[in-house]
């Protein structure tokens, strides 16, 4: 066809001069327009939006960071009279470049739900809940916790927090609970996702410092993903991988054929928990083949000789047998890493949620270090974080670290914190509190009698669920502070405090690449729900420590406190000029010191760490850390012949689904009934067809799920998404000894036809 066509209307793609208008029937006979047609009418949009329907037409827009995962996408909130009417992904945001995953698109929708907690609820004698005033609720809160502390000691009340609230709220909670209320123990659900990366980085680099920036996805010529499925877990980061123009080699270590593995040029489909041995074998091949960056190793690392000796024990031949990955594949991967100019290594929960995760993460860090792949564009040993503010929790939650990445044990640090917060140094505990698992154990042993749970759902997400629920029921007083009153954990509560959610309050999240970004108050909280920040203010008053927290008037004031606390730390943010500065820049990565701010007008958007090859240990060197491999605590056997892996299901599901299940359109995007992926061979041997029900039993519990018969899991392995309430009935309670992170991904089960 070579007929010349010219658009009748400039830019229009639907009008053609080459095609004559047809005769159309009169409107009475064929109604081409009318009320129903108008319902879907689009109008030229202002605000750079393009064609927009009336429900989404704003009178102003503003950008807020998304509140699900750690990618930290910018969402353009459409406002009418200051109130959000909808959102679209922010085109100009440096993280997501105009895109968002379904969760982000539906971020506002989940605020509107009958399940929202709208009033404080107090458990009544018949087991139900009664509405209460804030005054009654806060008096009860104070009275009960103080009584417990008076009877059992201050340390008998603890808190469990989250990676889902802003840094300012984490800081306030941590300071209030430990310095104001005298608690000693508190931890966050970040223990379930990031503790391993934190511990690994701290030990290796001397500071919890993920070194990368998202631009590295685009700059690498070789990317290694270990226990990571960014296609599903972090789809907007995968967007960055696909934008890489270097035709990169992509190596994936995963027991399953995931979407990411499918896209890889090399998939090392290792048997579960053989990752540490496999990484040591790859390291050995890298060393043997002379790919070590000797000058970097010499100048910037310690422990290379011990590393060489250690990995020599993991010869490729025997590791190939253990891991099910062939010698050729191991060598090929080592070659690709060794010969790459810019190699980046990425890990997620496959590594973190493991009983030897810290050492596995460090094996990844070791590979980056000995090949000199750090501090340059496209390099790094990079932990992709989970929750939107897990990174904030690491710095500000006052749990594993004294607030602002200080040490409880260090008198100078305590003095600094006491000075900046203007509090008595004696109110600061001198030891690090317990980790999540130890707090749960403490409840079981009657050491902890009162618990304050904020924005997390242990009755669903904690490993070995039936035990976790029994533990929660042992408490004398359980307070659950959440945006929904319907969470599995709220059912166990004595007092439910209604919290405002993302979009109903202000603060900052820190994303995976260390970027502080703003969330904004663009929607009214339902009923009497209060932001967590405001709840903490109220608690401070009722507890009688208002004076101590008089500086904490609003989130931005808390941010200024945080800035002061960050001074001279690797995570220094003293150069940020308040929230407006963050808003103008599309977020700012730490560090951004006052010295930086003096030198440069605006922070460069893609900054990475260690370009000077100086690490945070006293000698300025990074440590190469090694360890022996440990056997799996619950290997498969005749009674429980299948290894159960758990993890992310669909992009549209988030954690325990308290939020994502509230969006009708998201609910359509994932299976609503629990399912388990099993291999066709296993399905045949138990006589089950695709879609039929199976019973899955472990030593701890049993559940019914639909069998999804797929060849992407190996025989004698099965995969079940963690989002379903029943999944953790099966999991074995065991932990990484260094990070105390639960190891969710290796439980022996038996699968039978129903």
């Amino acid at each position: 066809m070579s007929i010349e066509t010219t658009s009748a209307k400039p830019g229009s793609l639907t009008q053609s001069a080459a095609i004559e208008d047809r005769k159309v029937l009169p409107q009475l006979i064929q109604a081409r327009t009318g009320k129903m047609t108008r319902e879907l009418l689009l109008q030229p949009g202002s605000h750079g939006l393009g064609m927009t329907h009336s429900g989404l037409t704003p009178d102003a827009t503003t950008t807020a960071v998304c509140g699900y995962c750690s990618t930290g996408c910018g969402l353009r909130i459409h406002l009418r009279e200051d109130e959000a009417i909808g959102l679209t992904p922010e085109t100009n945001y440096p993280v997501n470049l105009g895109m968002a995953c379904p969760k982000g698109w539906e971020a506002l929708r989940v605020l509107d739900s009958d399940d929202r907690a709208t009033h404080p609820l107090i458990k009544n004698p018949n087991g139900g809940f009664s509405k209460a005033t804030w005054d009654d609720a806060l008096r009860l809160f104070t009275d009960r916790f103080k009584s417990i502390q008076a009877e059992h000691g201050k340390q008998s009340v603890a808190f469990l927090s989250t990676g889902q609230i802003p840094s300012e709220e984490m800081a306030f909670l941590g300071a209030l609970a430990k310095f104001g209320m005298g608690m000693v123990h508190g931890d966050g659900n970040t223990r379930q996702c990031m503790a391993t990366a934190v511990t690994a980085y701290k030990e290796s680099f001397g500071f919890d410092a993920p070194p990368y920036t998202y631009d590295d996805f685009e700059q690498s010529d070789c990317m290694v993903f270990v226990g990571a499925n960014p296609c599903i877990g972090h789809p907007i980061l995968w967007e960055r991988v696909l934008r890489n123009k270097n035709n990169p080699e992509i190596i994936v270590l995963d027991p399953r054929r995931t979407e990411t593995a499918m896209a890889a040029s090399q998939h090392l489909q290792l048997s579960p928990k053989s990752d540490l041995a496999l990484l040591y074998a790859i390291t050995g091949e890298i060393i043997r083949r002379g790919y070590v960056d000797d000058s970097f190793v010499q100048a910037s690392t310690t422990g290379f000789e011990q590393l060489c000796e250690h990995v020599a024990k993991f010869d490729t031949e025997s590791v190939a047998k253990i891991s099910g990955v062939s010698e050729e594949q191991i060598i090929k991967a080592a070659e690709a890493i060794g010969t790459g100019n810019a190699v980046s290594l990425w890990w997620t929960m496959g590594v973190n949620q493991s009983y030897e995760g810290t050492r596995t993460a460090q094996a990844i860090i070791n590979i980056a270090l000995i090949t000199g792949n750090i501090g340059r564009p496209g390099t790094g040993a990079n932990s992709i974080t989970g929750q939107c503010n897990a990174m904030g929790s690491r710095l500000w939650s006052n749990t594993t670290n004294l607030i602002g990445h200080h040490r409880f044990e260090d008198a100078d640090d305590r003095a600094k914190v006491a000075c900046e917060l203007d509090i008595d140094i004696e109110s600061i505990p001198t030891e690090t509190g317990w980790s999540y698992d130890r707090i749960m154990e403490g409840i079981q042993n009657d050491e902890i009698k009162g618990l304050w749970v904020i924005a997390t759902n242990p009755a669903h997400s904690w490993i070995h669920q039936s035990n976790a629920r029994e533990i929660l029921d042992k408490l004398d007083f359980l307070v659950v502070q959440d945006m929904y009153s319907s969470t599995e954990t709220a059912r166990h509560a004595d007092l439910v405090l209604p919290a405002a959610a993302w979009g109903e309050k202000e603060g900052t999240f820190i994303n995976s690449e260390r970027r502080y970004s703003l969330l904004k108050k663009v929607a009214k909280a339902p009923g009497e729900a209060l932001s967590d920040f405001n709840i903490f203010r109220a608690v401070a008053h009722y507890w009688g420590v208002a004076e101590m927290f008089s500086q904490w008037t609003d989130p931005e004031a808390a941010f200024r406190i945080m800035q002061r606390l960050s001074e001279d730390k690797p995570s220094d943010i003293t150069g940020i000029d308040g929230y407006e500065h963050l808003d103008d820049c599309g977020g700012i990565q730490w560090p951004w010191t006052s010295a930086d701010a003096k030198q440069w007008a605006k922070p460069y958007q893609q900054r990475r760490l260690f370009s000077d090859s100086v690490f945070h240990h006293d000698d300025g060197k990074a440590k190469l850390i090694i360890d022996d491999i440990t056997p799996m605590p619950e290997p498969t056997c005749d009674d429980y012949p299948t290894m159960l892996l758990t993890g992310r299901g669909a992009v549209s599901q988030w954690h325990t689904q308290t939020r994502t299940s509230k969006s009708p359109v998201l609910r359509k995007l994932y299976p609503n009934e629990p399912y388990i992926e099993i291999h066709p061979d296993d399905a045949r041997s138990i006589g089950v067809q695709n879609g039929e029900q199976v019973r899955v039993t472990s030593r701890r519990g049993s559940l019914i799920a639909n069998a999804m018969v797929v060849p992407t899991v190996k025989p004698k392995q099965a995969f079940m998404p963690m989002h379903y309430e029943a999944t953790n009935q099966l999991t074995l309670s065991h932990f990484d000894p260094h990070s105390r992170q639960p190891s969710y991904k290796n439980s022996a089960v038996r699968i039978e036809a129903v």
Partner: protein
Amino acid sequence: MSSTLPITDPSPDLVGDLLREQQSLSAVERFSVLHEAGNIENEPAQARYYRDLLPASPPSPGQQFAFQVDLDKCSGCKACVVACHTLNGLEEDESWRKVGTITIGEAETDSLPTIQHVTTACHHCEDPGCLNGCPVKAYDKDPVTGIVRHLDDQCIGCKYCTMMCPYEVPKYSDRLGIVRKCDMCHQRLSAGEAPACVQACPNEAIAITIVDQGMTFASDERIASGAPLSSISKPTTQYVSSVSEKIASAVPQDAKVDHVAESHWPLAVMLVATQASVGIIIAERFWSAALVLAGVETSIMATRISATAALLVGGIGLNIAPLHLGQPLRAWRVFLGLKTSWLSREAIILGKYMGVLTAAVVLLWMPTFSEYVPDIIQAWTPDWAAKAALGLSIPIGIAGLYSSAMIYIVTRRKLWRHSRTFVRFLGTSVIVGLAGVAGIAAVVGYGKSAAIMGLISVAFAVAKLVWEYRIHLGSGVSSSTDDFDRRSHRLVKSQLSELAKIRTISGAVGIFVLLLAATIAPASPSLSGVAAIFAAAVFLASELAERWLYFSSVVYDRMPGTFK
């Protein structure tokens, strides 16, 4: 409850202050609002990402727009589905895109197993089933772009397009009483902007491309594994993959997982009733003809009762049918589709059938109320008029039944093919028609006739029930070589087992009662008549259950889906 520690009294109304602050949204004013109203840019901000995903100009004559999906780039995030929902302002759970999942290969084959997501929307077919089937011209294939657009204000909500579209694209809205579907964001393309899904894909996997019309497809060609045959409607979507051969043989995640289809119960009632109605007329006419041939006197009363019964049954059926429409007040336009739509034809022809039958009934009964009828009318009404009208209703009725059957046959769903549909539809006519007329014959004293007609009806009823047993009711079907039969059987056995039981038991009861009636008919015609009429009613109900199953247990090829 007492505290051993003092509680400091809070400030007079701290909580009140906090609650007030929580409800104030003025905080946004503190931040620079990025785009002030009226600050219209030359093109939408997002255009920088989608510019390369659109053609530069409209299609030339003989060409049309099509979606092009690069499967290698699709990572399965489903942002396209939600963007369609959000940017088009659709209902709570409505989206015009969906994403299915397929897996390729088992471990023992040489290639590694692979997972692939397949995003799908309207395929803007060259020969759109929805458009061809629509009885009111509520679909329009745009002459420039080839986009198949749905005219929402024209739609009567008959849902026929949901059967005619092989890809399950049009979706019915209870709130609106119409279907809606993807229009490739025609309004956006008109402004030179990309469709919502194209704009929202992080990986640029969806683009708009121009294809030449006049596509030909191999007889077994499908656009995705398990999808309907492309020859049915000539879909235009282009799926591009570096491993397209493997993808063609992939297994959808929802393979063998079927759900009960919509029962379309008003349609089931209408079909069974109109078929029974025509069956009664035909049975009675044949019986009368046989009596004439045998030299036996016919009964005008039997004719009157039969015709009236046929009118009543058919009338009830046709009056229930509109319950199926979401917008019945727009249904007067149903003649618009006569050229292509069997539904239009059915509606018009069965309407005529009822008209002629009504006339026949009036004329048949006229002698009984002649004193009330003006002479002029009686003078102008010949004696043969009643019989002629009755006779005329037969070919019209048969044409109506044929149209009814063709409605489902042309959907190309294999379980609704000619043999499966005609046996059912004609079977209903024969079984209920003969049983009913047998009853009427017995009541007016023709015991022998009743016995013969009853036995023929029983023979047909037994044959049809046996046939249904072999295709989907019985347990032997599970070993059938026909995949559709096996899938349908699984539905019947699991989720539709109650209905299948009703069909079987009522069929057996009807057969037993009618057999009894036929046996006693020569001796005791009036008792036999009552029994036969009862049997006819049971058959009617049983056939309704059969029809309900016909709709609910249908399975067909579909685009890859996911677990629900």
